[in-house]
Structure formats: structure tokens, C-alpha cells
């Protein structure tokens, strides 16, 4: 029983979810209360995670099906912080759309729970369970604004495609189980026999499923529609939190059981990476809706993250994790700006609505400027360092082609980020937006913008945290 404290955060969240559901049913008008309690839950779960698991090197539980290691605890902490921030800045948006209901925080909590299970999984079954838990919650979240056609459409689309990919994934799992005799990652690693081509099939199927979850090209089709249709606060959640969990599983799946088959999967990851980088950059150019644009840009950013994964080295994994962490901060900042584009209780999400923003809202535009240049990867902002670490790891493995293609695609991507900056700074101004934003929204924007701007002063901190992660 001693080891139960290692999964205390998960237990705590699941108990809270049940409690909050009961509370929500029996107490009227309890949405604000549930909301606050959920925030509190996440906070406590984060504290427990830090306390109980942060210093642990590697422990496996429940017949090796759950693993607690530095990567798991770090990613859980990022997930929880991400979830907390998403929840806290979305309240005013939800209220404006009159969808401030008890289900929202509870669904977020359960999807976070699923992600935490995914992150810790060391077994195909546990992994699948976590994945489904988070996906089911996400389907509902996507349709949360159910009176809007687009939101329902987004949810349905997401559900159908995601279920298909889950099916593929499950098929891959069964193939792997069939040919290695186990679902446990460590056991599979020992049983591996590279002559079994069916195993390669299994890997491919699972990779397809995972690539779908992180929306890597060519499994990205759902992303733009779902991102556009979902309520903005949910889109924010989509772009940040599930990707962290999916990336962790990606790393664990490739590097624990199948590291010896690297010759077989490396090409696939390189292809996914290059395709995502280039497609993300080119497809974003023509967009007019900011959320769609963010969808394509997030596809591109996933490409860079995968580039780090493709290296097959610890440096590569660490650089990917650094990349995703910095990306999460940038995304948070970008969406905070997006949530500030409000006038008379209406939110604006077209790029043209940003026109001439710098005249009326100099500070907001300055933040956007920093965020966009950072997303484009221009030094000395945080986004540059993210790319820099990835390409450092890539070039270490002499994968020059990947590095050059990646960097050239940053130039293409720079174009559409510049286009937004152009609209903000060079174009004619429009009507003013409201300035009475909530404290938390302002806080998250200032905090993340400053983090992005001043990251270069002490980049070692993040590296030190991440350097504890040694998968291989």
C-alpha cells in the first residue's frame, strides 16, 4: 500500500470528479462553486504531484503497468498547470456565451485525469484507458456550445475521426500483443524480435493513432475544423494540454519497447515531422480565422517537436519536451490575447479584426508582437530557443536534411506570423475593444509574455529540469 501515494494525485482527482458531480446534481446554481472547487482540486493535485513524485527516479506500480519517473512527474505538472490556467482564464468567455455550467470544469478535470493516466502508463491497456477517458471528455467539450451549429459539427467530426483512429490504435495494440505476448512495455522490449514484420505493422498502426491525437500531417484533417468550431476556451485546451500527454506517450512508446526497432520507425517520424512542418507553414498562409490559423500553426509546431523525437537520442527527447513546454506558454499567451478581443459581449476571431490594434491597445499589441515573433522563432525570444534545442539535437545525429527543411519551413511560417503583425501594426485602426478584462486573463497574458521575452536571460533553468529525463 506504500506505493499508492505515488498515484495519489490521480486518486484525488477521480474522487473530486465524483464528488463534484454529486454536488452539481443536488445543489442548485452551483456552477461557480464547482468551478472554484475544480480549480482548487487541480491546484492540490499539482502540489501532491510535486511532493510525492518529483524526486523519484523510476518506480513501477501495479505489476509494472504504471511508471512514475521524472518525465511522468514533469509532464503531469505541466498538464495540471496548463489545465489550471485554461480553466481560470476561460470563465469570462463561458459566461458571455452562457455556457458556464457545472459540466465544464468536471469534463476538464476528467480529461486531465485521463491524460495523467496516459502519461504514467507503462502498458498498452493502461495507456488505452487513459486515452479514451481524455478523448471522451474532449468530444463533449468540443460540442460544449451546443446551440451553435459549428460547435456541434466540431464535436461530431472530432468524435468520428478520433474513434476511427482509436480503432486503428487498438488494432495495433492487439498485433503487438499477439506477436510479443504481452502488453507491458518492458516485457515487449525484452521479447522483441526484429524479424517479426507484424510488429512493425503494430507500431505503424499505433503511430497513426497517436499522430492523429497530436494532429501531425497527414492525420491532421480534423484539427482546423474542430479548433474553429469549438468554443475558444476549449480550443485553447485542445492546443495545449492533450498534446503534452500524447507527446509523452509517443516518447514512451517509441523509446521504451521499440527503441531497438528505431530503423523501422525513425523514417516514419521524420516523414511526419517534415510533412507537418511544411504543411503547417504553407496551409496557414491563406487563413482568415485566427483559430484556424492557430490550428495550422500548431500542426507546424508539432512537426518541430517530432523532429526532436526522430533523433533517437536523449537530447532529442529533452529538446522535444522543452519545445512543447515553451509552445504551451506561447499558446497560452496567444489565446489570452484572443480572449481579450471582446466588444459588447461579443468575441472577435478574424484576423482582420486585429487591424490597427496597436493604435488603440498598444500594450496588448506589444504582447502579440512578442508572442508572434516568438512563435516564428526569431531570437532572442523563447520560441527561438525551443527551435534551437531541437535542431541542436537533430544536427547532433547528422540529420542535416531534416534540420535544413525544418529551418526553411520556419521562414515560410514567419510569413504568416508577419502578416498578422502587419495587420496589427501597419493597417488602419478599427473600433476599440473592451478593456475591462478579468484579473486572471491579464495575469496570464502578462506572465506568459514576460516569460517569453525574458527567457533568454536564464535559459539553463528549464534545461536543468528537463535534463533529469533519461528514457534511454
Amino acid at each position, binding site marked *: 500500500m506504500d506505493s499508492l501515494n505515488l498515484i495519489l494525485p490521480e486518486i484525488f482527482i477521480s474522487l473530486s470528479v465524483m464528488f463534484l458531480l454529486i454536488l452539481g446534481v443536488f445543489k442548485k446554481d452551483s456552477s461557480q462553486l464547482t468551478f472554484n472547487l475544480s480549480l482548487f482540486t487541480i491546484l492540490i493535485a499539482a502540489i501532491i504531484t510535486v511532493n510525492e513524485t518529483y524526486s523519484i527516479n523510476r518506480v513501477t506500480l501495479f505489476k509494472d503497468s504504471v511508471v512514475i519517473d521524472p518525465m511522468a512527474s514533469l509532464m503531469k505538472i505541466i498538464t495540471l498547470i496548463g489545465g489550471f490556467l485554461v480553466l481560470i482564464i476561460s470563465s469570462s468567455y463561458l459566461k458571455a456565451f452562457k455556457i458556464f455550467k457545472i459540466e465544464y470544469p468536471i469534463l476538464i478535470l476528467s480529461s486531465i485525469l485521463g491524460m495523467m493516466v496516459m502519461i504514467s502508463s507503462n502498458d498498452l491497456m493502461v495507456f488505452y484507458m487513459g486515452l479514451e477517458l481524455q478523448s471522451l471528455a474532449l468530444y463533449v467539450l468540443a460540442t460544449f456550445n451546443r446551440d451553435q451549429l459549428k460547435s456541434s459539427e466540431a464535436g461530431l467530426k472530432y468524435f468520428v475521426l478520433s474513434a476511427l483512429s482509436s480503432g486503428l490504435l487498438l488494432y495495433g495494440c492487439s498485433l503487438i500483443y499477439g506477436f510479443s505476448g504481452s502488453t507491458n512495455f518492458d516485457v515487449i522490449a525484452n521479447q522483441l524480435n526484429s524479424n517479426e514484420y507484424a510488429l512493425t505493422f503494430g507500431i505503424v498502426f499505433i503511430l497513426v493513432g497517436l499522430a492523429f491525437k497530436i494532429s501531425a500531417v497527414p492525420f491532421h484533417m480534423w484539427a482546423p475544423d474542430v479548433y474553429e468550431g469549438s468554443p475558444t476556451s476549449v480550443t485553447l485546451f485542445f492546443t495545449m494540454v492533450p498534446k503534452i500527454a500524447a507527446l509523452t506517450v509517443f516518447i514512451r512508446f517509441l523509446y521504451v519497447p521499440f527503441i531497438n526497432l528505431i530503423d523501422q520507425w525513425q523514417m516514419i517520424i521524420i516523414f511526419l515531422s517534415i510533412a507537418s512542418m511544411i504543411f503547417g507553414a504553407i496551409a496557414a498562409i491563406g487563413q482568415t480565422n485566427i483559430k484556424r490559423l492557430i490550428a495550422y500553426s500548431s500542426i507546424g509546431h508539432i512537426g518541430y517537436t517530432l523532429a526532436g523525437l526522430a533523433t533517437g537520442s536523449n537530447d532529442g527527447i529533452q529538446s522535444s519536451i522543452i519545445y512543447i513546454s515553451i509552445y504551451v506558454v506561447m499558446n497560452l499567451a496567444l489565446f489570452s490575447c484572443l480572449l481579450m478581443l471582446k466588444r459588447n459581449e461579443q468575441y472577435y476571431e478574424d484576423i482582420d479584426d486585429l487591424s490597427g490594434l496597436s493604435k488603440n491597445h498598444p500594450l496588448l499589441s506589444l504582447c502579440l508582437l512578442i508572442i508572434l515573433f516568438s512563435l516564428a522563432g526569431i531570437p532572442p525570444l523563447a520560441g527561438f530557443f525551443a527551435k534551437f534545442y531541437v535542431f541542436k539535437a537533430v544536427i547532433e545525429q547528422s540529420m542535416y536534411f531534416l534540420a*535544413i527543411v525544418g529551418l526553411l519551413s520556419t521562414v515560410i511560417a514567419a510569413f504568416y506570423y508577419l502578416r498578422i*503583425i502587419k495587420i496589427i501594426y501597419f493597417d488602419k485602426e478599427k473600433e476599440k475593444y473592451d478593456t475591462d478584462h478579468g484579473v486572471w486573463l491579464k495575469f496570464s497574458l502578462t506572465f506568459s509574455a514576460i516569460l517569453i521575452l525574458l527567457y533568454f536571460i536564464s*535559459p*539553463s533553468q528549464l534545461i*536543468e529540469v528537463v535534463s533529469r529525463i533519461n528514457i534511454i
Partner: protein
Amino acid sequence: MNFPILSSLILLPIVGALFLFFTKDKDGNNLTAKYVALFVTIVNFLISIYLWLLFDTTTSAFQFVEERIWIKDFINYKVGVDGISILFILLTTFITPLCIVSVNNTVKNRLRDFLIAILIMESFMIGVFCALDLIVFYLFFEAGLIPMFLIIGIWGGPKRVYSAFKFFLYTLLGSVLMLVAIISIYWISGTTDVIKLYELGIDAKYQNLLWLAFFSSFAVKTPMWPVHTWLPDAHVEAPTAGSVLLAAILLKMAGYGFIRFSLGLFPVASEIFTPLIYTLSVIAIIFTSFIALMQEDMKKLIAYSSVAHMGFVTLGIFTLQQQGIEGSIIQMISHGLVSAALFLCVGVVYDRMHSRLIKSYGGIVTIIPKYSILFMLFSLAALGLPGTSGFIGEFLILMGAFKDNFLVAIIASFGVILGAAYMLWLYKRVIFGKLVNEDLKQMVDLNRSEYLILTCLAVPTLFFGFYPEPLFNTIEVSVSDLINMHNLNIASK
């Protein structure tokens, strides 16, 4: 450790910018902001003069070196100057206050933001010239794109958006390959510290590709033919102060990069690729001079002349002769002063008549005589008349070229004649001849601030034309050691 004088040079403008950021932005003539910016840049100039006085000219070692751990076991923040870089730092700190004085007439809206951009730009430029770590260099080199993009885009002319994008994307495209090369150097040699790399040397089998990657970045920035096309656009659309910074300092980053990195780190490859540079430089000199002859827009003409002058610079650097490299450095300094002055001269008439077309001027010598005299001085300096700093540079470059390759030198010499042709023709059409337009009579001569700026630029142009000794003193040891090191490296391979 001594007082970190270089870091304070880099940081001071940023502190000034921060201070401005927290002052209130007033419309119209925001005097407080301007005085603050002016004060900061002048202090910076004085510090750099002090730096020059302290500078020991008898050694080629890097001086005032500061080193701090930045990313553990990976990058150190390292800055320092030698005889080559100190002149560029001086040029930067000298030109920036003049830019700030010149905004008087040119920038109408959002003056405070403009000054912030200029100040941030200054600190990045100084950073480029004193960085002694490749990654630190890259950081400063690239970061400069952001303020320049905004300067062109927000305060530029009618086609500003196109020009700003072109400028940004061209330069970024060139630079990303340099980033790949820098990271590769880290994996090949285990360090990005320039001084250590000088000692270690880089294996000859990698040098060619690395050289080309660096070249792609510097060639765009120089700009060399055929990737020069962003420059005329950027120059024409940028506000006067932006053009001045661009011509006077930004272009010099690439020339400096060629000397410091291409020559210093890749001696074997530099030897191999000399014919390429010669060809491109000669084409740049002759071809863009002809283009300059045909221009109708004054700013465009000067922009193309910049390309031609930078052609001389790259030619001089890769002669790998003492005279050639010294000439290139002096040519860069001189071009920094002269092209800045010429852009300001165009700015002066543009502010009055709102036209940059040559044909809308003519016969204004009697109307604005002071202006005509100063304009003449700078035109002559641009074409390299003896007695101006332009002459020293071009003469030395050609001397170096004659030593190395006779044919190239002969062709390049024609460039001097063409340079005289387009500059004198420009001057004749704008200043002399018949009065083309009655409105021109309304023009007022230079006001106090314009007079001050142009005189400030004229003094060093003439001074170094007659007495270039201080410049030579500063660069001589560094350049000769660079060449010795280069020859040693070649001999050992």
C-alpha cells in the same frame, strides 16, 4: 574583473528604451522622449570613445573580454573587441545619435515608439560587433530584424509592407542556414567560442559547406549580387533614419562577418571560394553601377550605389592582402559615414518637396547653397575623390586586388569611373541646371539640426580622408595577424 564596459554599451540603449517605454507617449513633437534618447546615445558614444582611447593597438588579442556562463556546458556569453570590431562599434554609436536628431522632420506619428526601436536596434548592432561566441553573434544578428521590420513597416513609405516583408524574409532565409552551420560547428569542434575556434581550427573537409552556409547569410545582408534586390526596396520605403541605419551599419554586419568568421574560421574554404566572391563582387560593381545610372529615384540610386560599394568591400576582403582588407574596413567606415549623409541629404529635400524623383529638382544651387555644398562634398566622397575617406578605401582595395588578380582589378577600376559618373550626374541634375519648377523657390536652406548632422558627418569624412592614420593604427595589427594566421593555416593544410 574590470568594469564590463562592452556589456554596458550593449545594455545602455535598452535601459533607455525601457525608460522611454514607461513615459507617456504624446502626439506631435515629443521633446522629452527625444532628449532622453539623444542623451542615452550620446553617453554611449562617449563610452565608446573612451573605449577607443583605452584600446591597446599593439596587440591583435581581443580586449575588454567578458565571459559569463549563459547556458551551462554549452554557451558562454562572451564579448570582446579587437582592432577590427572597435571601429564598427564607434561607427554605430556615432551614427545613432545623428539618426535621433534627424527624426525631427521625418517621423510624425508615434515618435516615442520609433525612438525605442532605434535604441533597441543600436544595442543589437553593438552586440553583433562585439560578440565572441557564434551563437551570441547569431542572436544579435537575427534579433535586429525585429526593430528594423517595424521601422520600415510602421514609418515607411507607400510600399512599406512589401519592402518590410521582403527585407525580413530574405534575411531570415539567408540566416537559417548559418544557424545550421553554427550548430554543426558546435558538434564538430565542441565549442562555439570564436577565440577557441581560432586556435583549434576547423577540419578542412567540413569547411566548404560551412563557408557556404555562412556565405548565404552574409551575402544577403551585404548585399551581394544577385540577392541584393531587397535593399533598394527597403531603402526607398524606410524613413530617413531607417535608411541611414540600414546603409551605415546593418550592411556592415555582413562585411564584418566575412572578415571575422568566413576568413577567420574557414581559411581553406575562403581560398577555394575566392573566385566566386570575385565574380559576384565584380558583377555587383559594374552591373549595379549601370543600374544606378538609370535610376530616377534618388534614394534608389544611392541604394544601388551602396550595393556597388559593398562589392568593393567584399572584393577587398577576399584579396587576402593586407591592403585589401584594411581598405575594405576603411571603405566600410567611410561608406557608413557617406551613405548615411547622402540618405540624409535626400531626406532634406524630400521633407521640403515630398518628392524623391530626380526630375522634380534642378537648379537649386542658388536657392539652398549650404545644402548644395555639403551634398557636393558627400557626392565626391562617394565617388572616392582623394582627400575624402572614400578614396583611401577604394584605393587600397584596388591595390590589394592588383596584387592578387590583375584582371579583376582592372574591371573593378571601371567601377570607380562609373561611380563618378552616376554620382556627378545625379548632382548635376539635382543641383545645377535650369530651375524646373517654380515651387522649388520656396525651399529653405538647412535648418540648425540638419546642418549639425551633416557637418558632424562631413568632419570625419574629410579628416580621415587627409589623415587616416588613427584608423590604420587601430586595425593594422589585427589585420596583419589575421592574414598571418590565414597563411599559416593554408600552409599547414
